[in-house]
């Protein structure tokens, strides 16, 4: 029994140990970056952070903001919501950042929200699509300090469904979504509702899990169900495999997806031929000739020797937006920055001209990208109706 006393002492010791953290006064502007750099969704985090780093590098190369350099404190949340909260508190309490970027996934972002709200620090996620991230579902009120630069699930799925029915003339669709991913599930639910509301039929719907590589059994099922279009709201790596396996099985119907498709690796994995007759909704196209997009793609390629995917673009936009607001207000007061962020209007982002609505969601045009012989071709641009 007595050893418990020792334990108690050690607990005390530990408390005093973590009590002595270093306090440093800095003449830099500190931005907290809390992303998934390891663990199952490390790809999203790493690509987003590449974009963030590029944006900060550009600002610093141009002399910083008001003579101060921008310093990003980048920490890994291991793709774990609890760890994300831990990282957020570290950034806020110990690094004393004035703004918080990330995390990538909605689950982790939701876990961070109370911490930034308590500390009154603005937070922007580049890819947390769950509507609850910026709006408290219990009260229906917008969370004052939380913003996102990506779409929420509904607009993309609504536009996608309309495109499937009207432009591609598909009445019978199958949906194949990532059951372990709330982004994917969110799109699936809205898409299904939209299709059914417009008089279409969902002939088959299936979830896969993040570890899956073998999709033939389910695709065989879709084939038997007579689907005229397959909606795959997932990330490019799975999408590429799904489409190439489907084409091998002789499923020639169009495939439709969302911004998670956007990566040069989509073509590298699936091959150009398999991707013909596939479409996805996106904020932008890396083949877009708008100057912001072209410059960004060029700079990104120069820095990392690869083409940016949508995570990188959103990360870049997120950081650029924040830094622009800081520069504009000339203030390092988180409250001032928060208020200015909420008032953002027509910010020229790579992923489309950005205006925040009352729910802190961006209003952007949605582009429909068609894959033609391995190249992304802008099929049409649609402004979401809601």
């Amino acid at each position, binding site marked *: 029994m007595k050893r418990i006393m020792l334990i108690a002492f050690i607990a005390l010791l530990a408390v005093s140990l973590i009590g002595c953290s270093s306090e440093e006064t800095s003449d830099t502007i500190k931005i907290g970056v809390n992303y998934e750099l390891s663990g199952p969704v490390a*790809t999203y985090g790493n690509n987003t952070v590449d974009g963030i780093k590029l944006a900060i590098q550009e600002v610093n190369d141009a002399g910083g903001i008001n003579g101060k350099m921008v310093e990003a404190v980048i920490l890994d949340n291991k793709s774990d919501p609890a760890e994300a909260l831990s990282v957020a508190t570290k950034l806020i309490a110990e690094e004393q950042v004035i703004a918080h970027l990330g995390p990538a996934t909605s689950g982790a972002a939701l876990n961070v929200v109370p911490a930034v709200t308590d500390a009154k620090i603005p937070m922007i996620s580049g890819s947390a699509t769950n509507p609850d991230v910026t709006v408290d579902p219990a009260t229906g009120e917008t969370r004052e300090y939380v913003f996102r630069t990506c779409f929420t699930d509904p607009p993309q799925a609504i536009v996608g469904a309309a495109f499937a029915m009207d432009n591609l003339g598909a009445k019978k669709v199958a949906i194949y979504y990532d059951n372990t991913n709330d982004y994917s599930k969110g799109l699936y639910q809205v898409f299904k509702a939209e299709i059914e509301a417009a008089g279409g039929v969902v002939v088959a719907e299936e979830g896969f899990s993040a570890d899956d590589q073998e999709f033939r059994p389910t695709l065989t099922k879709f084939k038997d169900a007579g689907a005229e279009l397959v909606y795959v709201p997932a990330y490019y790596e799975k999408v590429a495999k799904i489409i190439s396996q489907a084409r091998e099985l002789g499923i020639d119907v169009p495939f439709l997806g969302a911004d998670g498709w956007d990566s040069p690796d989509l073509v590298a994995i699936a091959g150009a031929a398999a991707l013909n007759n596939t479409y996805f909704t996106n904020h932008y196209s890396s083949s877009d000739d708008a100057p912001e997009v072209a410059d960004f793609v060029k700079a990104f390629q120069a820095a990392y020797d690869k083409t940016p995917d949508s995570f990188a673009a959103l990360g870049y936009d997120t950081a650029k937006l924040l830094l622009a607001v800081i520069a504009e207000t000339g203030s390092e007061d988180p409250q001032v920055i928060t208020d200015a962020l909420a008032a953002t209007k027509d910010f020229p982002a790579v992923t489309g001209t950005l205006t925040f609505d009352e729910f802190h969601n961006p209003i952007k045009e949605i582009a429909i990208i068609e894959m033609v012989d391995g190249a992304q071709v802008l099929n049409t641009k649609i402004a979401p109706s809601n």
Partner: protein
Amino acid sequence: METLIAQILNGLSLGSIYALIALGYTMVYGIIQLINFAHGEILMIGAYVGYFSVAVLGLNIYMALLLSMFVSSLVGVLIERIAYKPLRKSGRLSVLITAIGMSLLLQNGGLIVFGTDFVPFPQVIERIPYRLFGGRFVVTSHQILIFAVSILMMLLLQYIVGYTKIGMAMRAVSYDKEAASLMGINVDNVISFTFVIGSSLGAVAGVLLGLYYQTIHPLMGFMPGLKAFVAAVLGGIGVIPGAMLGGFLLGIIEALVSGYWSTTYKDPVVFVVLIVILIVKPTGLLGKNTSEKV
């Protein structure tokens, strides 16, 4: 009926991959009764070596395979010599925990060295779908390749273990290490040789997995490795044809669960099957009964 056959074909192709990985597990387990948790990671290393040989060194696929088998064997033997060998006399628990540690180390080391992105694997062998019976069933060139390789490997292993001198030494070591060493068998070398074979098999599986599923990733070995182990247990661990049988069965079970129920129940079902097998026939379908010495 047609769908059923199509699904069984789907299952067979997945199953040949499990079988190929399971052979490696079974080899090592058969000789030193160790679940080499790091086998999946050796597979991953094999896949990356294959990738670099093709994409960076510009070697052809056969040279890439050889190089990847060589490097994987080296890693396998190193792991055995550094981490497992010193523990040969300590309890099972220690070795098992070390194996888990190795697996974690290689996974996380891989994430740091190779990055967290999925790397597209160069499609050096063309994917040709063959449509049978007017397109009702589809078999691709890759599926045939993997199926053939796994059968070939099984036969080769059977031959090595059953009809060669080193195979006899391996069997002797698996029965009784001490007696084997008294008979003049160099036990260390035999165990190393086992790891060479197991790891080479892992490398082949890794490269084929890369070719077949088009990407590689530092964590690519873990889940298939685990499933393959389940397959090995299902068929009777330590029994070479058992690994094969278990692999095919597991693949077919997964395909049928995905096809007739839901993909998301596939993994739970696989593990339920494992637990049931362990309870009903712990030695697996083709396994032999052994009892503990007192």
